Structure formats: structure tokens, C-alpha cells
């Protein structure tokens, strides 16, 4: 069952296990009476017999009847397997809980993480190489999507949902202010100017420094790779010239007060979206559902269009957001876990089921199904919504590689960019400082970083 390509198993840490053993002795002495109360997850062997899979996910909410229907379906197909869902947080929380659980040997069987969080848990040795387990379902997902969970040729997760990048905007208010839907970022700046001139209380969008992933995608669209590797060494391109040009673009908009410096999805942002003071959100195909959840009254006034381009006529974009299911290294039912992840992400039935949960499926069958699906509730009138996004996926040819220390960049970048936006200091300096912080952290951990 273990493929020969597996990386060397993680070394035991004598110190840790010694300490744990000492603690165990200390605890068992006093807790023996109660420790029989509940054993950690069911422990039947992988071959045959009933198996319970612990799944940490926010896509499938155990409390949502639609998700329940999906799981019931899986139970029908696999009577021996019971799937138990739990929501433990977002990518950051799930990753940190997974790493703690891994140290304790008490992991679930499947975890959901956004793509940017995957390399960190791979290098921590906390998730399994499932290349062999998913070999049979490779055809269910396009290679450019598998690339999001493939490192060094090994597959570490099954893509579930994806984020084809679109600009979601207030059609009615763009018309009202006479702004054209931008197809390039230069036109976007013009539209921003026009809108803000017509009504100084209105902005084309908010500028949210915490959205590291968005700025990385911006840079990727412009031809820069923030993280990349050749299998041996890492290359960090946050301060590459192409990346810095995108910094200049946003600095210009912020300095001319054409975008509102404001974090996303705060009560403030929600209120401004509701009252028509913020007119667009450059994100991905999942954005309409998020906007709907905070501004249901504005449904019918929005539309989504392909993301503006840096170079007119070059529609290439990366994915933004989306997530995969991974199998923790210490899962006791890795085979069944990988099978479940593969079914939901790559099978016809599974990937179609994602659509019923308002999730943008990464699997081919699900994507095919979107073409005949009703548009999101935010834009019931935009009948070609899924045609637009499908075309965007075809143009999503830029692979984004995330590094093992995205978190370091996240905090350094977000904090510094906020400060720069407030104090009107150089955005380029922020990118350069983030570059240094990321490189220094990689080197401190012992990775080789190439120039």
C-alpha cells in the first residue's frame, strides 16, 4: 500500500517522545480511573471491517442538510465507512491543529486546507503522499488543477474547489457613474477615477492589505512567481521587477484615494457594500456567494467579468483560493481517507455534489455541470455566469507555487502594507522587506535559497 516514492518517514524526536512518556506515566497514575472513558477514534484495521473517517472541513458542514445528503450518498456507496464531519476553523487554524495533533499522534483522517497552506504541512511531514491512492482518478481533474497539490512529482491532496479569478461588480452603479467594465488594469484605474470623481463617497473597491493571496495572484498575473523551486532550492520572487510593478499600481491608486483602504468583510465593509459605496471585488468565482451572505438585498445588481489584464490581449490568470482534501500522515485509515477525498473531488458524482453546496467544483464533471447550472443567487439575471467562469478556467494557465513559509509572508506583508497605505510610504519597500523576511526564514530553517 505504501508507494515506493514516499519521502523518508519523519524522524522520531527522542526528546519529545521521552517527555511525552514521562508525562504519560505521571498522568496515568492519577487518571487511570477515567481514561477508559473514551478512546481516540475507532481503531479497526484498514482491511475490511467498519471504518470511521474523521474529516475536518468547512466545505461540508455537518449541520447543513445539503452536506448531509452528500455524505449519506457516500455511506450508501461504502456501507463500511462512516464519515464524521467537524469544522475546526479555516486554513490557519486547521493547519495549526493538525500539526499539534500530529505531534500527539491523534490526527483526523482527512483535512481541508486552502492551497496556499499545503506546502507548510507537507514539509512538516504531517500529510501523506497519496500519489498511488489517487492514480485511478487522475482523469477526473485537469492537470493544471492537480498541480496545486503536487510537489516534487508527488500528490499530497485531492483538489476539491477552485477559484477562477473574476471581477464581481455592481452593474447598475457602474452604469450610473458611466464607468466601463475594465478589461485591463489601466482601464480599472480609469474607472476608479471616474467613479470617485462622480461621488467622492464611493469607491470602485476596497484595498485590503491582509489579502496576501490576492497580491501574489496579481504578481503572478504580471509574470512574477513569489515562490518557486527546482526540486532542490527555493527561489523567492516577491521583489522581482514584475512583482514590484504591481506594487506601484496599487500604490498609485491608494495615493490618489481611488480605492478605500479597508479590510474585507468587516462590518464596515459589509455596510459599505450594502449601501453601494464599494462597487466591486476583484477575487474569484466564490465571491458572489460571500457578497450574497452579507448583502442579500443587492442581489440582481451584480455581475462577474473576467479579471482585468496587465497586457491587453493576454488573458492568462492564476487561481485564487480554493482548497484540497489531504490525508494526515498518522491517519489510521489512510486508504479509505484517500478514497473519500478522491470520490468527493474527482468522481463525477462527488464533484457534481460540490455544486449543490454552492462550491465551485474542481472536478471535470462538476465543472461540466456548472454550464447548465443556475447562476449564483447574487446575479440571477446573469445567465452566462458559468460560461464566463469556464472560459476563465481555460485561461488559468499560470501555476502558482506556494512555499513552506507562507505564514511568515502573510504577517510581515499584511502589517507592513497596511502601515505603508496609511503613512503613504513606499509599497516597493514593503515587497522588498517581505522578500527579505521570507528568504531569511527559509535560510534559518535550513533551505537553500537561490538568487
Amino acid at each position, binding site marked *: 500500500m505504501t508507494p515506493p516514492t514516499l519521502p523518508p518517514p519523519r524522524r522520531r524526536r527522542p526528546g519529545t517522545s521521552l517527555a511525552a512518556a514521562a*508525562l504519560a506515566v505521571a498522568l496515568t497514575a492519577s487518571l487511570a480511573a477515567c*481514561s477508559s472513558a473514551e478512546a481516540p477514534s475507532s481503531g479497526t484495521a484498514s482491511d475490511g471491517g467498519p471504518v470511521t473517517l474523521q474529516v475536518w472541513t468547512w466545505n461540508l458542514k455537518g449541520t447543513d442538510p445539503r452536506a448531509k445528503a452528500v455524505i449519506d450518498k457516500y455511506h450508501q456507496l461504502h456501507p463500511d465507512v462512516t464519515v464524521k464531519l467537524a469544522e475546526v476553523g479555516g486554513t490557519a487554524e486547521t493547519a495549526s491543529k493538525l500539526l499539534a495533533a500530529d505531534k500527539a499522534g491523534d490526527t483526523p483522517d482527512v483535512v481541508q486546507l486552502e492551497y496556499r497552506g499545503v506546502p507548510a504541512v507537507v514539509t512538516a511531514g504531517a500529510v501523506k503522499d497519496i500519489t498511488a491512492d489517487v492514480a485511478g482518478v487522475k482523469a477526473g481533474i485537469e492537470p493544471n488543477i492537480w498541480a496545486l497539490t503536487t510537489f516534487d512529482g508527488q500528490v499530497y491532496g485531492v483538489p476539491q474547489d477552485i477559484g477562477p479569478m473574476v471581477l464581481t461588480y455592481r452593474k447598475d452603479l457602474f452604469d450610473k457613474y458611466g464607468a466601463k467594465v475594465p478589461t485591463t488594469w489601466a482601464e480599472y484605474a480609469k474607472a476608479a477615477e471616474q467613479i470617485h470623481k462622480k461621488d467622492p463617497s464611493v469607491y470602485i473597491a476596497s484595498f485590503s492589505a491582509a489579502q496576501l493571496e490576492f497580491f501574489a495572484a496579481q504578481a503572478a498575473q504580471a509574470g512574477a512567481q513569489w515562490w518557486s523551486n527546482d526540486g532542490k532550492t527555493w527561489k523567492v520572487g516577491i521583489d522581482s521587477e514584475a512583482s514590484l510593478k504591481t506594487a506601484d499600481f496599487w500604490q498609485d491608486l491608494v495615493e490618489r484615494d481611488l480605492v478605500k483602504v479597508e479590510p474585507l468583510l468587516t462590518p464596515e465593509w459589509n455596510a459599505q457594500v450594502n449601501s453601494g459605496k464599494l462597487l466591486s471585488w476583484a477575487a474569484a468565482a466564490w465571491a458572489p456567494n460571500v457578497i450574497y*451572505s452579507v448583502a442579500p438585498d443587492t442581489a440582481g445588481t451584480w455581475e462577474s467579468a473576467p479579471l482585468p489584464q496587465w497586457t491587453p490581449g493576454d488573458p492568462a490568470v492564476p487561481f485564487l483560493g480554493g482548497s484540497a482534501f489531504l490525508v494526515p500522515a498518522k491517519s489510521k485509515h489512510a486508504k479509505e481517507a484517500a478514497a473519500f477525498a478522491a470520490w468527493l473531488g474527482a468522481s463525477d458524482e462527488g464533484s457534481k455534489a460540490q455544486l449543490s453546496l454552492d462550491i465551485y467544483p474542481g472536478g471535470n464533471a462538476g465543472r461540466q455541470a456548472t454550464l447548465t447550472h443556475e447562476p449564483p443567487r447574487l446575479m440571477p439575471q446573469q445567465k452566462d455566469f458559468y460560461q464566463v467562469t469556464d472560459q476563465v478556467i481555460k485561461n488559468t494557465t499560470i501555476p502558482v507555487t506556494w512555499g513552506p513559509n507562507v505564514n511568515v509572508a502573510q504577517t510581515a506583508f499584511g502589517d507592513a502594507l497596511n502601515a505603508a497605505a496609511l503613512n503613504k510610504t513606499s509599497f516597493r519597500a514593503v515587497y522588498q522587506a517581505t522578500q527579505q523576511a521570507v528568504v531569511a526564514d527559509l535560510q534559518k530553517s535550513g533551505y537553500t535559497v537561490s538568487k
Partner: protein
Amino acid sequence: MSAGDRTVLTRRRPGTARRPRLATVVLLLGALYCLAPVAWVVIASSKSPRELFTTFSFAPGSGFADNLAALGGYGDGQFWRWGLNSLLYAGLGAILSTLVSAMAGYALAKFRFRGRQALFSVILAGVLVPGIVLAVPQYLLLAAVGLAGTYWSVLLPVIINPFGIFLCRVFAAASLPESTLEAARLDGAGEVHIFVRIVLPMMVQGLVTVFLLQFVGIWNNFLLPFIMLSDQDKYPITLGLYTFLGKGAGDGDLYSLVIMGSAVSVVPLVVLVLVLQRFWRADLLAGGLKG
């Protein structure tokens, strides 16, 4: 003279002719300042998701019943289950914690023994360590004996409460006269008997204080259950409410549920405070530091 003795004195203030109007006004302003945000939570809980961001903050909304139904209906009534879990963690945890603290506080206050001061200092130093640091080691420890993820993993660590022990020592010192204990010992009563029949009843008001503080502390605790639990059926309310906030890309915040949940989850605490307030004897703190 100990604090306990002093509070027994009844107070009779010679009436001044004038009512201090200014004092009353300032107190009422203080009350208004403290109540207004609470009122806001209640009002906001009546707003539908669309009203929450669009209407004036203190304007009542039309969605109270809907929000309550949505909260109650979330996952077949999972919210109420979280509420029961919180009651279990906070109720049982605070009772056990109070008992352990009472025993330790009594020992530290009423017995002279070698190492007493050292023991007390070490326990008090426990107040200085932030819980964030302890959560992960505690988790690894409990996982090593197979208790991580169980009800025990949230209950056991909260039983030890250095601040509670400190309070109990102070209160035992102030409210237990040596003469009463000596008389019981001369009558041949056992130490356990003395503790159960004499010490606990005499300390009961202080124990209520310790119980209340620890109950509120456990009820509001987020980090420990977050790191310990991954089965949603075992979540307390704080952790459950957290799942209403957005997670990954494409997952929005359920603010109206969070606010409704907050309003509902504060209710038991308010009731507890109102009910137990008659026992409220925080003067043990003040008196004890002297005695």
C-alpha cells in the same frame, strides 16, 4: 481585626438632609454606559442579516424570531447542545475547582507547616503564566494518555485555579476563627469532619465568589477547548460561535447568528450573576491582604 468581623457590624449612617443628587446622576450615567452595549446586543439580535448593516444601530429589527429559529435550527439544534456542554464544563469544572481551592486555601491559611509559604508562592506564580503557552503542552500531555478530544480534556485542566486558591486562603484566614476550630478538635472531631461540617459552611459565601469567577472564566474560555476538541458535538458555546465566522475563501460570516448566539449565551451568566450576587463577598479580597 479581620475583615469578616468588620462586615458583621451593621451600618447606620446619620442622615444628611440633602440627597446627593450629583452622586446619583453619576452612578446612573455609569449604569447607562455599562448597559448600552448590552442593549445593543439584544437589539442587534433582532435584526435580520440585511438590516444588521443597513439600519441605525439602536433601531430594533424585524428578525428576532427568525434569528432565534435559525440559531436553534442550526444543525438539528446543535447550538443548544453546545449550551449544555458549556453548562457541563463551567458548572462541574467550577464546582470541582472551588472544592479543590477550598481545601488548599484552608490548609494554607489555618495550618502552620514547613513549606507553607513556598507552596503558596509557587501556586500564586501560576497566575503569571499566560494560558496560551500552556495549551499546546497540555494537549500533548492529555493526548499521551488518550484523553485528548474527550470531555475530560476540557474539564481537568480548569479544575486547578491558582487565583481561586489564593482567594480561598484569604477567605479562610478571615472567616474561620481559631477558637471554633480548636473547640471542635478538643471535642475529638476528625479533620475531615471539621472541614465538611464547619469550614465549608463558614466559607460558603467566599466559595460562591470563587465559583462564580471560575464559572465565568470557563464559560468564556476559548483556546483550551479549541486546541483539545475536534468533535463538534463536544464544543462549548464559545467555540461553536466561532464556527459561524468565515473560514476559507467563499465562506461568509454569519454575523446575525454570532450576535444572536452571543445574546443567548450571555443570558445564563447574567442570571447567575443576579442570583449569586446576594452572596457576593469580594471584601474577602480586600480584608485578606491585610490579615
